[in-house]
């Protein structure tokens, strides 16, 4: 099922894009699975996601931990820890 990924903050610059549509394999069911799958795509993703603990996520606009499910989701956002204040 197609999944829209949104990138924010420094992660967007590192990946050179603010969004993309992907179609992860069926074994990708959590945020952590998604990060691992993305990191295996190519060097740019591997470098940008090299510290998974520094990557936060939201599924359908709700904050979600790496153990959170993406099953059936249409939109997942990935971003660095908040840092504006």
């Amino acid at each position: 099922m197609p999944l829209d990924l949104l990138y924010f903050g420094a992660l967007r610059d590192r990946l050179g894009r603010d969004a993309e549509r992907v179609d992860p394999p069926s074994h990708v069911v959590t945020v952590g699975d998604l990060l691992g799958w993305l990191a295996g795509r190519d060097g740019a993703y591997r470098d940008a996601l090299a510290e998974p603990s520094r990557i936060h996520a939201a599924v359908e606009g709700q904050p979600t931990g790496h153990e959170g499910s993406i099953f059936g989701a249409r939109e997942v956002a990935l971003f660095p820890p908040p840092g504006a204040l």
Partner: protein
Amino acid sequence: MIDIRIQATDFDPGHQIGRLEQLVAGSVASVTVAAVASDEVTEIHVDHYPALARNVLAAIGAEAEARFGLAGIILIHRHGPLLPGERIAFAAAAAAETGVAFEACGYLIDALRDRAPFWLRETLGDGSVRWR
């Protein structure tokens, strides 16, 4: 009353405090945060994820209301381009007791800092950029 605002434009802290004073709760405490930057920074851009920002700020407000029993809460966070020194965020709480209003206000601003999905991109005088 919980009022959450995510906006590009500046805000008037005095006006916002006045809105909470009209609740006649007893005490109003507030914190205004400026976008502080080092001398070489010429512009700041506040990046944000609108859907998540609304949800997170609403959750922070609801948590503070439940925890402190507040009469009113105002949370404001700006996004988009800012100049160093401009106001970037505001938190205020109205409560029957002064100590509670102070404590709640600290809670709100700490939660904004730690959880609100906003990121700063600084443009330096030489044209380079960096993220905070």
